[in-house]
């Protein structure tokens, strides 16, 4: 086997693998954005998205490299081409190289991974605090600085449609399974701390657009924080198996500009005051 042949086959294999990678990693995302993590609407979600993309591409390149060598070999070094088998059984030099290079790659990955984590775990300096309690199968939100509190459950339309053989078409239900009766309303541009706990079993509070999930554990209070940059409606779900209706306790966050948020707060206070 001449050397040139190996190079040509390797290039052809490389091209095929790059095309395959493009087909499975890039092409599905061209039409819609429902095949990848969201960049989200917080610094954290953007950080985690960037980190995800860095690691994804490093992994893709490693995979392409390994498979290029492997499939080149599969094409060339076969008995049907009368290839005579080599006799080597080890190479200390090669083995050192492919121990050291991965270590260097890992160190390279660890740097942004550490930075993002340190930022995520710094909840100091929050301007408001919301307490989240998971129940089977709904969420309770308490605005600790405002004396506002309410329960948030799956909205009635979704709940009717999700019954076994309900005969209703999920696609016709507005935000099927991702809609609630009382959304969590938050202001944009403010550092908000969440205290997260549960009443019965472990749940996990997750809104992908905010960039993280955090377990709600009975008897313990966890903390996490967010600072939403863009007004909008963001949906999520419970992420820890919590019993039969685990799939039916969604989360909806409505992020409002400060003035609209203040209006909402005074409305809530008036309502809760009227209810007393």
């Amino acid at each position: 086997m001449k050397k040139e042949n190996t190079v040509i086959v390797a290039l052809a294999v490389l091209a095929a693998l790059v095309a395959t990678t493009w087909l499975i990693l890039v092409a599905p995302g061209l039409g819609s954005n429902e095949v990848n993590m969201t960049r989200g609407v917080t610094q954290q979600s953007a950080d985690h998205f960037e980190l995800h993309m860095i690691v994804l591409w490093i992994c893709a390149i490693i995979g392409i490299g390994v498979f290029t060598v492997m499939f080149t070999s599969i094409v060339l070094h076969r008995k049907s081409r009368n290839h005579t088998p080599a006799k080597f059984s080890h190479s200390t030099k090669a083995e050192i190289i492919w121990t050291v290079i991965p270590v260097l790659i890992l160190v390279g990955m660890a740097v942004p991974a550490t930075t993002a984590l340190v930022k995520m775990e710094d909840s100091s300096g929050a301007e408001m605090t919301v307490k989240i309690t998971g129940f089977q199968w709904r969420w309770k939100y308490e605005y600790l600085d405002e004396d506002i509190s309410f329960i948030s459950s799956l909205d009635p339309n979704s709940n009717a449609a999700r019954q076994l053989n309900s005969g209703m078409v999920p696609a016709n239900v507005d935000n099927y399974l991702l809609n609630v009766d009382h959304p969590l309303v938050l202001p944009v541009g403010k550092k908000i701390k969440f205290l997260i706990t549960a009443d019965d079993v472990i749940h996990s509070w997750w809104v992908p657009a905010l960039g993280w999930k955090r377990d709600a554990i009975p008897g313990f209070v966890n903390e996490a924080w967010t600072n939403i940059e863009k007004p909008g409606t963001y949906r999520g779900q419970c992420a820890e198996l919590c019993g039969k209706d685990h799939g039916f306790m969604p989360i909806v966050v409505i992020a409002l500009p400060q003035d609209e948020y203040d209006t909402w707060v005074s409305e809530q206070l008036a309502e809760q005051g009227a209810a007393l």
Partner: protein
Amino acid sequence: MSTEVIHPDTHHVDDGHDHGDHKPSNFLDRWLFTTNHKDIGTLYLIFSLTMFFIGGSMAMVIRAELFMPGLQLVEPDFFNQMTTMHALIMVFGAVMPAWVGFANWLIPMMIGAPDMALPRMNNWSFWILPFAFTMLLSTLFMDSGGPAAGWTLYPPLVLQTGTSFAFVVFAVHMMGVSSIMGSINIIATIFNMRAPGMRLLRMPMFVWTWLITAFLLIAVMPVLAGAVTMLLTDHFFSTNFFNAAGGGDPVMFQHIFWFFGHPEVYIMILPAFGVISEILPTFSRKPLFGYGSMVYATATIAFLSFIVWAHHMFTVGMPLQGELYFMYATMLISVPTGVKVFNWVSTMWQGSMTFETPMLFAIGFVVLFTIGGLSGLMLAITAADFQYHDTYFVVAHFHYVLVPGSVFALMAATYYWLPKFTGNMYSEKWGKIHFWSSAIFVNVLFFPQHYLGLAGMPRRIPDYSPQFADFNMISSLGGFAFGATQLIFVGVVLHCAYRSKVKATPEVWEGSRGLEWTLDSPPAYHSFNTPPVVTHNALSRAD
């Protein structure tokens, strides 16, 4: 505990075969009371194949319910029982016993021994399993239903299981006892029964990986037993190990469980590494590349598996230092795993390859396991894991390492050694059909689940928002096709055992290496009555 030693000539009634074949002729003696490593191996393999189909049919229920949005077939609670049972059956009933089955068949033949070291215990360790799994499966028919809290059995949720929970715990105990007895037997066999000259560093890789796996099993199965015992007393006897109200901590269960659970994933994959390291040299007609580093990489992986457990629980809220430590330690595992993959590729490089079914499954393993390994590296990145955790991305990841990982390796092993076991060649044509359809459908089944997870679909939900509909439907179609494809496998195996007219030679494959290929196909009832003398490492010798 019985430590009886085989005396091949006085042990069983002679059934008249002329080549030292002493099979009992009575059915019960042959199968129920057998102490023969090959018969017990066969029992393990049949049992695990049965469990593979039972667990698989549960997966079909899951994929059918997830075929489209809305609930069409089962209530959510039954769905949760299906996901929980599917995992318990596949992990403890299909993959682990299948590896023990191959260990039974192969280890004595590979190290030049007549049988396993502890044949009586071997019989017990197998016959516990049908009882354990009957007990486990029977919970599905109880009023309180089967376990529905996931195979990870997290409290407090799992404590809401009804009285059937006691059956689950006892079933887990029995599986544990079975695995531990099997492991003791394997270690004793490898330590004490090696043929003269079979030094540790001349052992086949399958023997090495199983030796390390057996130590992992003995170290962690008792920890699982302890954890479920604590759940049992919390449930029925008012202890408060995991009850926050009584001073306990539900998160502590997760730490204990994953102290078992992470080594457990290597228990399922290390023997697969061994099998691939046996098959690639054969069909590349070339020595295994880097035998020594393969052994050390396996040992390193096993060691690291004990110190990374909390990467399964990054979202429970740990101190920053803890999160950083578990992230770095987990990332480190990719180094020895990478060494293995690079060594496999180097084994193929400059070989003279042919592509019989075992080789195809082995190559499929290397490619798809690597994909699963790389997504595992992504999951190690704590901050990104705050998004990945408990989504279909995780489901895709562990199915890539378990299905085209462990299960493909089991298929590869079956095709590779079946001619040795039965004395007949299987149908290469149907083997190849089985491989190609499995390889295609397993990707149709699991690859879209990466997209679903990244797009925000949590795992363990029976119904989902219509935005996830397309990829779920594709995944389900792939699942049904993959499930149906496995019926071909049963056909090929049965045909090979009972119908095939093509007799296998002792060496079976042109490039095969190792002692088992010096025996007849099928080998005599007791493998090596006269120990062979081993002079070199068959896997890494260059001729």
